[in-house]
């Protein structure tokens, strides 16, 4: 049986207590995008600055949510800042692959082995335990889905 320590790693609690890149950016010029978790009511707002080289020069996180969604957003913001959207795409795929075993089986689809992009997840590894708590996977992926949508919109 998975225990609480699998879910609430120390580093997660640290990001929850001390969220990185919390706040807002003026929009415009920043791009602003909202995400919802329809199941629990968590909401996130991501503010993005992209430069001409498709690099995330700044990012801020607003909204409210549980320790998992907040810490995931905080870690994400730290991990993507300064990176190009291509690099962020790889990181997103790697992160979602880490989560996907359960996300897809929740949806009921067969668990296909996923080819991970060759990317270091770093601190984000701490969220691996979330897959043992399928309901919480959507908490962990909310920020990432919202970021992906924001990038799409900003580049459109």
């Amino acid at each position, binding site marked *: *049986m998975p*225990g*609480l320590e699998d*879910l*609430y790693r120390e580093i997660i*609690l640290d990001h929850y*207590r001390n969220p990185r890149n919390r706040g807002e950016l003026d929009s415009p010029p920043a791009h602003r995008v909202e995400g919802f978790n329809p*199941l*629990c*009511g*968590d*909401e996130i707002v991501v503010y993005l600055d992209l430069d001409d080289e498709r690099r995330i020069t700044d990012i801020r996180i607003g909204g*409210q*949510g*549980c*320790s*998992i*969604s*907040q810490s995931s957003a905080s870690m994400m913001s730290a991990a993507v800042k300064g990176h190009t959207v291509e690099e962020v795409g790889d990181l997103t795929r790697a992160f979602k692959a880490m989560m996907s075993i359960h996300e897809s089986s929740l949806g009921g689809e067969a668990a296909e082995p996923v080819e991970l992009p060759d990317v270091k997840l770093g601190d984000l590894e701490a969220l691996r335990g979330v897959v043992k*708590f399928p309901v*919480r996977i959507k*908490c962990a992926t909310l920020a990432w889905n919202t970021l992906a949508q924001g990038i799409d919109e900003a580049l459109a």
Partner: protein
Amino acid sequence: MALTTPLDVDAIRADFPLLSRTVHDTPIVYLDSAATSQKPTAVLDAMDAYYRTVNANVHRGVYFIAEQATNDLEAAREKVRRFINASSVSEVIFTKNATESLNLIVQSWGRANLAAGDVVVLSHMEHHANIVPWHMLVAERGIELRWIPLTPDGRLDLSDLDALLDGAKVLSVTAMSNVLGTLNPVRQLTDAARAAGAISIIDGCQSVPHTATDVQALGADFVAFSGHKLCGPTGVGVLWGREELLTAMPPFIGGGEMIRDVRLDGFTCNDLPWKFEAGTPAIAEIIGLGAAVDYLTGIGMDAIRAHEHMLTEYTLRTLADRFGPDIAIHGPSDPDLRGGVFSFAFKDLHPHDISQILDQHAVCVRAGHHCAKPLMKLMGVGATARASVYLYNTTADIDALADALESAGAFFAF
């Protein structure tokens, strides 16, 4: 001060198989009956017996088991009629859940009677099931929605009710909030609606399972509720409506059972209640619901309310005693004004995290927006944790909740 209950809760708990299971090696503490209730053996046995010995399609067969299936289904309708004191079985329509019941009203009565600019009055404490169907009609028809505000302690603020109802065609409100526990003054509301010339619709999802219901005394035109919250199975709900209105309404879903005649160029409707029951009904589930209302009637709805009143008093007092300012329970503080649904904020913990940690102690509470996002917004929160009780809960369950909250507080202390 000792609190007493008229119920033999030990005997009742033995009727509910799920309550004897464990979670993480700990006996389960089920405090989520506002989402769905547990089911007594009597209900499960009624459905199982139906499938094993009677199962046949209804209303059309001449042979013995088909006749028996029809009789069993219609007998369940009569049980539900008696349970809510409807004046006729024609007024008892089986749906798949309360959400469908409410949509049926909006899409049948609403489409037939509401035009652009017509006013429908809802409240800020409605469940999405009593909001979204109206939003859909706003989009389609351009009707206007007005909202009864709330007092700071989570009751309907009726000080401007007459102004809100002025010129309105419909008042649609919940009898009891599934978030705040607030018991609304239904008769006062339906009287005011009638005086204003509006019909009134009562969402009885949270009240019908927990208090004696007399639809005639409520003075409403429609009452909707679900089977699964009142010890019945999933897959069945009820719409009660005044016969006069139901008779005048166009059909909602078309198909078998609901017709008198079908030709290439049109059809005529069957009598009530079948006019609104197209297709093969949820036969086993309706029979299960009949067994559920028998079970609840056997125990006594007034005794159930008294038991939950006692638990409400105990819960409010216990949580306040043990956590003081660290806990804030939403909704009215007077147990006479509320049912056994307790949404709370605890320290600065997120409801999701509270529920997760409580689960480790086998305590089941819900965390989320409870399908009441407009209320969440009004309360300034994204979600709440919610514990809710039913006839099978005890003060020991509340103690377990408090103990588990204490460890949650400790776990997240920083």
